């Protein structure tokens, strides 16, 4: 500070720096002024922030926020980037649309395009039931294995995706009708127990003709599931001779299936997704591991 009488600045003896005249309990505040440009930069940032407040949405109001003169919204930015992506996709889509499944599976670019698109679309639409890794669950087929109810060729998968299974009011959908042998009293309890026993060991090496369930199976089940239980994809009849059970392979699970039958369903996607997307998903599911040639 400046002393009024001497017009001289108070100087701290030790450091030789001017003081501000502020003192607390004997501690003096030294005055080491900041550079002025520092102040200017600070003011500029304030002006910049004011500009920001005007041109971008900033002030909260009761009905949302001020719009800003630039008219910027995140939704618009999203739409722009989506358009950009669609534009990038269109190069591939043109080729993809006309190419056959075989062509796509042999063309590196189109194949990778289909995988990327199929992967994303699968997660959005299919993962709810089949799981993100397509591992399925009870009643929801595992799409990674090589056991297919309705066929595992890419065209089969495509058809299942398009028209679904057991879709109400659809002419194109496929469905299988396994009778509820117990509920509808088509078989007695003993017969059911016998056939469950039979189905459980079906597919092994042993000769089963002597089992009591053999006759029951051949009379009631073989027409769809085949004489040796290999199933029939045309009818959606599962293979009973393998290790994979959609509704569980324990005695209790199989008993439940024979008594009440199961009526799994899958939606038809033909009117929900674009044909390109459905084809991408078909190829994606086909390559998960079990796809048939």
């Amino acid at each position, binding site marked *: *500070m*400046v002393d*009024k009488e001497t017009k001289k600045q108070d100087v701290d003896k030790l450091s030789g720096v001017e003081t*501000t*005249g*502020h*003192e*607390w309990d004997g501690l003096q505040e030294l*005055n080491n*002024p*900041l*550079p*002025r*440009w*520092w*102040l200017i930069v600070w003011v500029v940032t304030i002006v910049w922030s004011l500009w920001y407040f005007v041109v971008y949405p900033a002030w909260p109001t009761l009905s949302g926020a001020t719009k800003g003169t630039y008219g910027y919204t995140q939704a618009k930015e999203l739409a722009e980037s989506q358009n950009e992506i669609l534009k990038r996709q269109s190069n591939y889509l043109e080729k993809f649309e006309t190419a056959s499944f075989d062509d796509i*599976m*042999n*063309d*590196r670019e*189109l*194949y*990778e395009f289909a995988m990327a698109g199929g992967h994303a679309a699968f997660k959005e639409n299919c993962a709810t039931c089949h*799981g*993100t*890794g*397509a*591992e399925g669950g009870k009643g929801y087929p*595992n799409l*990674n*294995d*090589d*056991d297919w109810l309705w066929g595992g060729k890419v065209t089969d998968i495509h058809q299942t995706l398009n028209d679904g299974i057991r879709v109400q009011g659809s002419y194109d959908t496929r469905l299988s009708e396994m009778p509820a042998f117990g509920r509808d009293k088509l078989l007695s309890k003993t017969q059911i127990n016998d056939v469950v026993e039979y189905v459980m060991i079906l597919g092994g090496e042993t000769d089963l003709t002597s089992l009591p369930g053999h006759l029951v199976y051949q009379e009631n089940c073989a027409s769809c599931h085949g004489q040796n239980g290999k199933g029939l994809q045309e009818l959606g009849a599962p*293979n009973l001779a*393998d*290790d*994979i059970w959609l509704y569980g392979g324990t005695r209790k699970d199989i008993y439940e299936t024979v008594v009440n039958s199961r009526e799994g369903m899958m939606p038809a996607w033909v009117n929900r997704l674009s044909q390109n997307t459905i084809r991408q998903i078909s190829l994606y599911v086909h*390559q998960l*591991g*079990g796809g048939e040639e």
Partner: protein
Amino acid sequence: MGCCNDNDSDLQLFAKQERIYPKRVSGLYRNLKWVAMIVCLAIYYGVPFIRWDRGDNAPDQAVLIDLERGRAYWFWIEIWPQEVYILTGILIFAAIALFFVTSLFGRVWCGYFCFQTVWTDLFVWVERIIQGDRNKRKKLREGPWTFEKIRKLTITHIIWLAIAWCTAGSFVLYFNDAPTLVKSFFMLDVSPTILGFVVGLTASTYLMAGFAREQVCTFMCPYARFQSAMFDKDTLIIGYDENRGEKRGKHKKGTTWDNRGHCIDCTACVQVCPVGIDIRNGLQMECIACGLCIDACNDIMKKVDLPKGLIRYDTERRFEDKVQNTETKFNIFRPRTYYYIFILVIVGGFMLTVLLNRSALDLTVLHDRNPLFVKLSNGEIRNGYEVKILNKTHEDNFYKLTYSGVENATLVVKGAGDISEDAIFVAADSVGHYRINLSAPIKPQNSLDITFTLTDKATNNSDTYESVFVTKR
């Protein structure tokens, strides 16, 4: 005194930048500075144009950072994003090397090689060529706005802007093919991104070297602030020999030097100082150790027939010893020099090992997390993996993938067309991405450790990756 005084309004809380007009000087250190400046500028402007043949599928620019494709080239070294730790290593090495040099020789980096110093020096040189030396510049700046003043200032600023523009333009050359970009500059056909960088860097160069100058070193640079941590009494600094210089005072030719110091208080050292300090006040934070005051003082000492070195490079310890009339030798080998050398050797050795062992092939295998395994209808168990193959060569290559650790398994590579595990294609200088399935007739058991081996069929180079084979939850 109370806390709130009427005279608070007299306080100067923000100080106006004091304009510094460094006087021209010549001598050993000024010459060293010229050499350093020319070498630094030549490297900076010239390097993007050096060509380096890398074959067909890679750029032929010796030093290039290709941000779009994620590659950095430095002569024979090529860095992929996966090897960014090399960049980290370079930064650590550079930082420690800077500390090392600082602990030995003080702020030589600041005084001779820092871009702030080099460009400021260049701008001051332009200023001097156009407007004249210190006094002329000062007079012109403080004088009235005449036609002459406007003309000289305009020319100065135009040249400054031109240099700044070249600087910015050179910077972007490090990120693009230099000759192509230079050509497109002349065709006025550059992308908005590049133009944005050029405009921004032109502005910052112009501002920092033309106006901010010593303010950058004093108020913005962190190195200047923490260098005291690297200084000790044996660090080489620029100092004024108080013992010999004091008591200072004007000196008439022919009068005696008895009972007085050798400093004739001519302020030559102050006039040439680019940061505007008086070195005679001792070691100061603002001093960038450029040595120009040494040149200025030596010149004066020669004129008054006294030995050189009133202001000189020396250590604090030796300056102090002078007072006691003793003398110590330079003490280069101190504990801290050993620490720094030790760290430098470790970091340098690590980087050298990494660079020498850099493989042109890299395999990564990621086991599927969902599902962990798949049971097949014939009872076999299948595991899925994502395989990434980095082909760092500049040729298209075919690789062979093998596995060990699980018996009788079948390996299937998924991709467009039928792919044999003996001939997995990866294009030059790119990452090949495949899914593979490994199925084995195996009973559920604890997960097996397996190893994938990828072999370059042409060179027999190989890389392995450890993974697992899961058979039960």
